[in-house]
């Protein structure tokens, strides 16, 4: 822990209290990332409730069974230390379902008491020689450091540190570090795009293969798809490492430095300019022309921009989203002619603050947690982010690339169009 000076006791009460926060625990974010690794099970080192609460939210959002285990810390282990709980939990999980990866994530409880997770894993391997080869990633994700996006980044960082190693470049392979705000559908869109230019993409993590909502033959207590541990070992040997989202910039830079790969960072893929730039780059790298399918899709985007611009123009939109998604959505809205009225990340404010700053707004953009607020203000809510519990199909949603642009232009355009038809606005009103 780093120490800072004690705050003045005269701090305004507002900062002492979060009201209807949309921040989520870093451990939840870490678990989400781990679910994009095939055959994995995230294990939260904390009280039972740390796991149960995260699991409920993930299940409601994705409408899928979510593998998520707990070390079940109790009063005694909180006092004496959680080593034995970690060892018992991993041995139990291995005995039950032979996972391909266990992601051991800390929580506020166990970081505060100072459990040594790395040490516990060493002792586990000594005590259980049969588990000597079991892949285990240790992730430090205490609640008091950031939110979902930060925990997700910590897990991606740990996966890279634990498994990726330098080696001869594998021609045609591209590694994509995909941030917490990219839905499974976004991952599929990225993979399709890279494959269209002849690349073999490796997504870290790859939620598109595990949480895309498909019925498998046999239900499993492990993540049903995703990048495999074997593939994770190769991600440092790609022609390119592409980082999407600023939250992963640091872990991407570390990978590139350690494995000597070429690194490209892209903040977001939600605006036309950003998508154009990315596709142009892929075309130049690969030496292949942009496939006809994407040229055609781009023309559809241009047409949709024309059709929808009447309704977006000067519309005031407050947003409350995780940082990476916020950046993409702000770029998208501004490029459509809408005005960003307020832009909040969970670290900047809560939904109470969003409520105070949405007077005269035409549309709110936030997760389902803002549904009651939107209703009380009489402002339509475009559900984006995490969790979305009152709409179906989160596993299939696409918000990036030309496909995402089209979808968002039409969905948002329809809401604004409906609003205009219901409440004709006097010119200048």
């Amino acid at each position: 822990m780093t120490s800072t000076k004690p705050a003045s006791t005269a701090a305004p009460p507002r900062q002492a209290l979060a009201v209807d926060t949309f921040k989520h625990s870093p451990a939840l974010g870490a678990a989400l990332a781990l679910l994009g690794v095939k055959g994995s099970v995230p294990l939260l080192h904390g009280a039972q409730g740390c796991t149960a609460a995260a699991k409920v939210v993930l299940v409601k959002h994705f409408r899928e069974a979510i593998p998520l285990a707990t070390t079940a810390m109790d009063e005694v282990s909180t006092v004496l230390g959680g080593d034995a709980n970690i060892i018992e939990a991993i041995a139990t999980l291995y005995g039950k379902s032979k996972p391909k990866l266990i992601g051991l994530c800390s929580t506020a409880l166990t970081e505060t008491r100072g459990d040594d997770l790395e040490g516990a894993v060493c002792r586990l391997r000594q005590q259980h020689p049969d588990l000597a080869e079991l892949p285990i990633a240790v992730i430090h994700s205490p609640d008091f450091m950031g939110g979902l996006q930060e925990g997700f980044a910590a897990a991606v960082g740990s996966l890279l540190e634990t498994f990726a190693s330098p080696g001869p470049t594998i021609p045609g392979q591209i590694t994509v570090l995909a941030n917490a705000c990219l839905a499974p559908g976004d991952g599929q869109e990225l993979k399709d795009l890279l494959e269209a230019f002849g690349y073999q993409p490796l997504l870290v993590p790859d939620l598109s293969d595990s949480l895309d909502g498909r019925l498998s033959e046999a239900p499993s207590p492990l993540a049903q798809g995703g990048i495999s541990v074997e593939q994770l070992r190769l991600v440092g040997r790609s022609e390119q490492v592409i980082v999407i989202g600023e939250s992963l910039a640091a872990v991407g830079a570390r990978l590139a430095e350690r494995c000597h790969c070429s690194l490209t960072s892209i903040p977001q893929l939600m605006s036309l300019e950003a998508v154009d730039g990315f596709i142009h780059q892929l075309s130049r790298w690969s030496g292949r022309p942009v496939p006809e399918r994407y040229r055609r899709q781009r023309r559809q985007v241009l047409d949709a921009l024309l059709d929808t611009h009447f309704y977006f123009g000067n519309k005031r939109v407050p947003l409350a989203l995780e940082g990476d998604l916020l950046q993409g959505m702000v770029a998208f809205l501004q490029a459509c002619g809408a005005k960003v009225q307020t832009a909040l990340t969970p670290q900047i404010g809560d939904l109470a603050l969003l409520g105070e700053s949405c007077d005269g707004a035409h549309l709110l953009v936030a997760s389902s947690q803002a549904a009651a607020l939107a209703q009380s203000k009489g402002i339509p809510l475009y559900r984006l982010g995490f969790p979305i519990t009152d709409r179906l199909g989160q596993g299939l949603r696409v918000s990036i690339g030309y496909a995402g642009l089209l979808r968002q232009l039409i969905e948002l355009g329809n809401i604004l169009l409906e609003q205009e038809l219901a409440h004709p606005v006097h010119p200048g009103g």
Partner: protein
Amino acid sequence: MVHAPTNRELLTEPACSHNPAAKGGSAKKGCAQKAKPGDAQGGCAFDGALITLVPITDVAHLVHGPIACGGHSWGTRGSLSSGPQHYRHGFTTDLNEHDIIFGAETKLRQAIEAIARDHRPKAIFVYATCVTALIGEDLDSVCKQAAQALALPVIPVHSAGFRGSKNFGNRLGGQALLDHVIGTSQAPRQAGPSINIIGEYNIAGEVWAVEPLLEALGIRVQARITGDGRYEAIAAAHQADLNVVICSKALLNVARTMEERYGIPFIEASFYGSANVSQCLRQIVDHLVDSKLADLSLIDRSEALIATHTALMGSQLEPYRQRLAGKRIVLYTGGVKSWSIIAAAADLGMKVVATSIKKSTADDKARIEELLGPDGVLIEKGGAAEILDVIARTGADMLIAGGRNQYTALKARIPFLDINQERHHAYAGYEGIVALAREIDEAMHSPVWEQVRRPAPWEQEP
């Protein structure tokens, strides 16, 4: 300072049939349940305390802890309110690293002040979490000082998650009501016989299916503890004539302590299944008549009411009975609810072929064995694999369980109904059985089952 009960004290609830000491067994064992690392499912004591207390609608619930505790839980409960909405807000001190190192009592005090100023609730409940318990935050004294300064009840709840299971947390919530709320009201007693309803959380509005029955008999509900609850009414709960504990071993400490302190007797009852609802009404009426709080005519009136509702329910159930008769259910839910849902299934002519007994007491188990008959399967252990195995073995048509197991069933292409706290439909009372029948019928007879079980045409070719 109020004595905060230790785990040991709370785990040896004398009125609870889980407790071996209550029946002359070993006093040391109590109700301690040790969660198994790597295997445990379910919430912690903090979660349980919220389940019990958050349904109190006109108070603010402030979580003193880091983000996971308050961030994930607000706004997700299915408890409904007929009025105030304070309980829907998520208040938390959202502790950061600095707070944990240097202590956050000042922050907590400021948070309490901000809530009192901006939201004006009837009271503020302050929940301890693992981290605040670990770093030794003095919740009792902060709450006491704030209460004096603000002239508002500010109630500490010692709900650190590591103290135990969700059920244990329910009990901690009840203990906070006993220590700080019940008996504190000076309001004049209202006329007429009255009861408290304990352990009913008004999920999907269930209590609203039962209260009209009581009203029709002139029986007033003094306090709902806690579904659609109001602070003042609970503070005056000691004025009631009878406590009715619904499907809850976890809040028996509330009923038993109120009997000791205020001489209010209690009964245990269930609102699920017509036989249980009728029995519950009869027990209440018998008590009021026996203790001369109502005259004998109440018995006739209650029998007439039961007859009317049972007949109406019977006619409404008829179309479903034909479609559901003989269908087989696997039930996976906790404690008392197991046997009360078995009774509800009986109303529909359905058979429960297996049920969980993980959280059931010896009494519950005996009752379940009797209700299930010799072929009934009792599920001792938890877990998705176990549930699916039992469904396969028994050839059951459907799983009725908590939301946590929804995808266990659906992914195995088995019809499912949610019976726990996140459901959208009310199943209590006579009306509730009809709703339950409708939901089971819809789930079981949906045309999707045939489609999802049928292989793709090319997979059928040899």
